[in-house]
């Protein structure tokens, strides 16, 4: 990809700082690209050309006045529709919020604005972030730019596809069980789920509060770090936000890019390999391990014996919290209201939720309501919390031996749209490798490790202890450098050209 849209955020930032280009030019170039290719891709639910250009002009004016601006000032960004944006429709991919205009900005959105990043628009997602394919969006699926017949991952398929289709150099995602990392894996992009509490959840429409974490998405490890730096850090409006300095992720990415991992201990999770993993996925994973070893890392195998129970525990905890978090969509204050004429409160609530929620959302609300019910609570929610504790212990034990853990991000490459829509359990299995990190609150990254036998991208996952997000960037940047020198450039250089069609 050539021109402004082909450049990394770090490049754009430098060109902006040296006034080689203006933010208006960079922003307009991406808006043009969106207009040209988003018809078939459908990464965006809302494009805010006016708002983005106004923000770009403001940055240009400040720079012209000689102001010192934050690193990424003027570099446009796309935001997952799960974050509320003042005056810009926010739906979380659900029909039940169609037309809602939030009166406030999420903390992450405020930080993006304060740092001068023009917001191009809101990206598509599975409804309320429930899904691994973006097919559960109330507004139609997003298509994978590598093959438009395939899923872009989910729930943040829009944020990942926007990067892979060069509609945006940066995007914001949210990861409850893999919704940043799995889309990154299947689109050949980079995504990070920070340590739980590392990025504010204030203004993030909750799926499962104890698992949700907002994170940065980009096409390179360094770009991801630069965005992470903008959005991370303590927020008094989020009680679960960590009140301590963030590790220096940008420094770590630059350190990793020297290619030296001498003394870094890398643990391969035994339970996240083998059966169920596509041969091409396993092959690319093995090659990446060799590159890490060549960079000086010590590679050992470690066991996390409780990981096989993670998926089951996750699908009790998540629906339980979601059933409560989604109760507020009751037609009383905002969003859709279906009045069947009988108009008792109960019937309006029921009719609105029947029409406004999709099947997957209803499935999980029912699951969660059941799991929390008197008489079932201990057996379901209670047991799941115990498994969660065991998984945290697995991580503790593993991180006593190694600095980072690694695995394939997802067991397979992107599957075909519609392929797993009628088989929720098969769909859930996509997240088997990403879910443990959410249950334990530890940070994780996915970065591209090559193409599988089917010509589709494969993701490599790195996990680090809580609060040590910098390790992801160091190891990730080193691997990225090694892979790109083997490929002779970024993986996305090999993506098929998207036919440009006017929207």
């Amino acid at each position, binding site marked *: 990809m050539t021109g402004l849209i082909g450049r990394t955020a770090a490049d754009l930032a430098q060109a902006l700082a040296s006034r080689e280009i203006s933010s208006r030019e960079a922003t307009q170039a991406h808006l043009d690209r969106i207009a040209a290719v988003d018809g078939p891709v459908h990464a965006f639910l809302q494009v805010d050309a006016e708002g983005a250009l106004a923000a770009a002009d403001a940055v240009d004016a400040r720079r012209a006045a000689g102001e010192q601006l934050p690193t990424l000032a003027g570099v446009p960004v796309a935001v997952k529709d799960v*974050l*509320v944006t003042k005056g810009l429709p*926010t739906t*979380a991919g659900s029909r039940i*919020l169609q037309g*809602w205009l*939030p*009166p*406030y900005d*999420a903390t992450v959105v405020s930080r993006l604005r304060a740092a001068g990043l023009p917001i191009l628009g809101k990206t598509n997602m599975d409804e309320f972030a429930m899904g691994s394919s973006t097919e559960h969006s109330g507004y139609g699926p997003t298509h994978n730019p590598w093959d438009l017949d395939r899923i872009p991952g989910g729930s943040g398929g829009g944020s990942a596809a926007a990067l892979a289709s060069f509609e945006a150099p940066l995007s914001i995602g949210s990861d409850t069980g893999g919704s940043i990392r799995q889309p990154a894996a299947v689109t050949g992009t980079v995504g990070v789920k920070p340590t739980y509490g590392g990025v504010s*959840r*204030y*203004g*993030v*429409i*909750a799926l*499962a*509060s*104890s698992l949700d974490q907002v994170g940065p998405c980009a096409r390179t490890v360094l770009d991801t770090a630069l965005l992470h730096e903008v959005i991370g850090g303590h927020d*008094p*409006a*989020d*009680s*679960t936000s960590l009140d301590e300095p963030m590790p220096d992720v940008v420094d770590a990415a630059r350190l990793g890019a020297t290619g030296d991992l001498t003394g870094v201990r890398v643990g391969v999770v035994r339970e996240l390999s083998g059966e169920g993993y596509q041969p091409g996925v396993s092959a690319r994973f093995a090659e990446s391990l060799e590159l890490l070893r060549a960079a000086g890392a010590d590679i050992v195998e470690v066991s996390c014996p409780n990981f096989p129970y993670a998926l089951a525990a996750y699908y009790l905890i998540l629906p*339980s*919290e979601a*059933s*409560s978090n989604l*109760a*507020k*969509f*009751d037609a*009383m*204050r*905002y969003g859709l209201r279906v009045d069947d004429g009988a108009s008792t*409160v*109960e019937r309006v*609530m029921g009719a609105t939720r029947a029409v406004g929620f999709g099947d997957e959302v209803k499935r999980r609300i029912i699951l969660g*309501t059941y799991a*929390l*019910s*008197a008489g079932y*609570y201990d057996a379901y*929610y209670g047991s799941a919390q115990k498994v969660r504790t065991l998984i945290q212990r697995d991580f503790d034990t593993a991180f006593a031996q190694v600095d980072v853990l690694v695995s394939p991000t997802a067991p397979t490459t992107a599957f075909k749209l519609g392929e797993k829509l009628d088989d929720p359990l098969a769909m859930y299995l996509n997240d088997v490798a990403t879910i443990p990190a959410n249950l334990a609150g530890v940070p994780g990254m996915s970065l591209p490790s090559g193409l599988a036998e089917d010509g589709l991208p494969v993701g490599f996952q790195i996990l680090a202890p809580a609060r040590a997000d910098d390790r992801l960037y160091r190891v990730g940047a080193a691997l990225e450098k090694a892979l790109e020198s083997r490929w002779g450039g970024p993986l996305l250089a090999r993506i098929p050209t998207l036919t440009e069609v006017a929207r």
Partner: protein
Amino acid sequence: MSEPVELMDVDQALEQFDPAFGIEVHVELNTKTKMFCGCPTEFGAEPNTQVCPVCLGLPGALPVVNAKAIESAIRLGLALNCSIAPRSRFARKNYFYPDLAKDYQISQYDEPIAFDGYLDVELDDGTVVRVAIERAHMEEDAGKNVHVGGATGRIQGAEYSLVDYNRGGIPLVEIVTRTVEGMGERTAEVARAYVATVRDLAKALGISDVRMEEGSLRADVNLSLRAKAADGEDQHAVPLGKRSETKNVNSLRAVERSIRHEIGRQAALLAAGGAVTQETRHWHEDTSMTTPGRSKEEAEDYRYFPEPDLLPVAPSKEWIEELRGTLPESPALRRHRLQESWGYTDLEMRDAVNADALELIEATVAAGASAASARKWWMGELARTANNDGVELADLAATPAQVAELQGLVDSGRVNDQLARQVLEGVLAGEGSPGEVVAARGLEVVSDDGALLAAIDEALAAQPDVAAKIRDGKVQAAGAIVGAVMKATRGQADAARVRELVLTKFGLEG
């Protein structure tokens, strides 16, 4: 189960049954801001003007605990002789209702901040009853539904309903007693005294406005009956009957009356061979009865689970001890201290307590009045007015400072007793301070001898026969002149001084 038409007489009911009760008191904390956001908590603002994304439950908003509310809850817990949990958690209570912005209430469930305490409650005759406290936990209040159209203001028959979220998210502490049994005919009295003591305690702690009429202190009363054992039967073997939970019990009087009502109602049901339904009932102040709400048997499952948006509350031992040091004296100790310093008899003190006048008398004394005169006003003229108007003493327009000022006018002789009552009338009518009423109504005692002498001369001229009698030394005849002067000055003259002036005028001694 249809409702019994006739209640059983309470005395008769108590011959057959022993009542057991438990009370949940909700104390609304008087923090400046809400439990989980920075919105103000003032009562009576325009609907939906004290709201934000958090207390409106907008998508994405998150709660942050108000530290002052935790402090108040801990102090209340300590004053209730509870243990303070080194670590307690908030939980979500899930149910759908329009006034509940998130469709779940953030409360505490299996890990309350305070538990296992007691409160000593003193009855009128000085008997002290120890009420065991099971727990005190924190939660947020809901908003308020306003039903428009229809006659009653209730949901039945209303055309539509509006919701005011100003109250949504105001911090509450819910205090739950253990079951209180064996109080017999004093059951209602104990219940009332308990709520009054909690109220006094919360007030003394300064953590709540405890205005029952504004809903800042609310009680739910659970009541059930246990049949008295037959001769030779073990009383403990007789099972406790099903209980009703009466809500909307929003005055001390209502606590007492609703208990008596429920005793009579349940006894009538049981005596007629019926059964008590375990249910929520609503107290109606206007009709002095309870009506059924939803049945507990089909009650919702609240699906409590730990609130994932909040961290556990873990007050340090040091902080708890520091807060223990800020506790005020107990209401009972305070009563004894005040009685001693005021020199009231037991009867006088009890009347003052029952009239809820301690605070008012104390403030009146602090404003300079003697304890005796403060009592005279609050338990006399003012109590009569409150009683006639059907309001609480504290709701009268007269303030302790004004009462003290009025007494000052009496003590200095500027008004006499009769005038003072007229001044008070003006104060109660909102005409201003006693001084202002005296000035506006011209009620001051006429102490200007010149004016009095002029009035005397006028009266003598009008009644020459009386004047002649006095001149003849008939001192008693002076009474007629005094009367005329009093009438002419509309009671504002000092009668003794008038008499003195009349006699002096005729060279007589009084």
